């Protein structure tokens, strides 16, 4: 027998609970992470677009740093070092210093920063592909630079970048699996726990693989629906060429 796969463990209610709980954590991480990532993307793109002194060079350093180093090392650094940098508070009852950011928060922040740096570049390229004439139309109507950004460039850019942003969200979901390495109980963590108890490594990994596949596929489908709903008639990726 080439493969004799044993999926009986899936019937164990404890393991079912673990997987569901882990799935919940994974969804929470990716949900909050995605929202933060988008906020960072828009704010960062605006900072660079408007050439804001001090903030712009800092944003560029952030992008260069986060895009060119491993998100796992970023996460470990955030998790272990932020409290050393003074990000901690004193527990009222025990009087002990406790890190301000939980493992969950660190994971979300590190994902938001890593994928947010990518998002800034994605949104910037979207803004750059808004036709110059459209912007000129806004200027001639008396719009300020800020108004043009808010009402014309950003809405068009965000629509244009849906495909790229979708792969960025998928990347965020995939990267979130590293949460398990800082003891955050996501679906990856519980899967590892199950393999340690059952020794059914291959089977558990197959199930885990499927879980991520379903999540990412759903996200991609959702994004396609969104893109469809937001299509600008007679304008878009195809019409841009």
């Amino acid at each position: 027998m080439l493969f004799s796969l044993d999926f009986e463990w899936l019937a164990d209610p404890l393991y079912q609970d673990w997987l569901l709980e882990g799935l919940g954590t994974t969804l929470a991480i990716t949900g909050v992470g995605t929202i933060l990532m988008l906020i960072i993307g828009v704010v960062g793109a605006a900072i660079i677009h408007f050439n804001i002194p001090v903030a712009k060079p800092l944003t560029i350093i952030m992008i260069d740093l986060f895009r060119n180093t491993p998100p796992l090392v970023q996460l470990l650094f955030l998790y272990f070092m932020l409290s050393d940098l003074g990000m901690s508070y004193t527990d009222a009852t025990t009087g002990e210093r406790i890190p301000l950011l939980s493992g969950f928060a660190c994971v979300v922040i590190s994902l938001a920063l890593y994928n947010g740096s990518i998002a800034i570049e994605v949104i910037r390229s979207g803004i750059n592909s808004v036709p110059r004439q459209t912007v000129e139309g806004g200027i001639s109507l008396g719009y300020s630079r800020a108004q043009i950004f808010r009402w014309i460039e950003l809405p068009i850019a965000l629509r244009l970048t849906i495909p790229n942003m979708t792969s960025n969200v998928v990347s965020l979901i995939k990267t979130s699996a590293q949460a398990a390495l800082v003891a955050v109980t996501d679906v990856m963590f519980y899967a590892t726990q199950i393999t340690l108890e059952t020794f059914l490594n291959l089977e558990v990994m197959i199930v885990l693989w499927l879980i991520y596949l379903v999540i990412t596929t759903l996200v991609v489908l959702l994004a396609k629906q969104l893109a469809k709903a937001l299509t600008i008639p007679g304008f878009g990726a195809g019409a841009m060429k």
Partner: protein
Amino acid sequence: MSKETTSATFGFFGVVAALLAVLLTLYGQGTGEALRVLFDRSSLLLTGSSNFSGFGGGFSANVIISVLSMAIALVCGFFLGGAMVSPNAMVRSVAVVFMNLLRSSPWLVVLYAMLYLLPFNVSIFGHHIFVSPFLKAVIGLSFPVTAYIAEAFRNGIHAVPDGQWESARALGYRRGQILRLIILPQAFPLMLPNLMTTYAMLFIGTSLVVVTGTSDVLSIGKTVIASDGDDYAAAVYLYILLLFFLFAYPLATWTRALERSLSKGK
């Protein structure tokens, strides 16, 4: 200095300065001591050996793993990408599904799966081949990267105007010939920035092989932390961030320059 060079230089020194600033903030008076620990452990972190006697571990392992994975993924990716533009609808759809399957799997899960799926010993015709965690890491990482390369390949081919196909067909070329002689030479320069970005991503992703038991820079970093004490954990992580940055950033700058020259050439 051109505007691009200026901004690349700014990014480079900016990031290095930022990392140094964090180190100084964390260690204050003890910065010298932290740097000394890093210096003492540098050989181990960079090569996995003391005194630079070998290059099978540490940061050099990350580099070697990334290069080998890329090589495997390039070969597989070109085949998969070719299947994705095949005239046979069946082959095409199977290839596309396969590509999406590979692309949407978390790297960490693929690495774990490879660790368990691949045997440690393979005997072919009486030869024992030892499949080390290192080799498993290489194979594991090449899977998702294959998908990215296949996609870059397909996009590159689609980026060549349809008129090229038509005119070549009118000249009597066969499909394979058109692809090889006319389309690919035009598509490859278009794909190059994409391939380089993929390589950079792969390189950064090698940090994940820590879970396969390969002695890459991160696993060695953790061992160093376990041996030298937690006090130097921050320094070790900063050092690892810096190593990755020093390798990946020039690559990213070069990619951007390539993209620019391509878009100018249009």
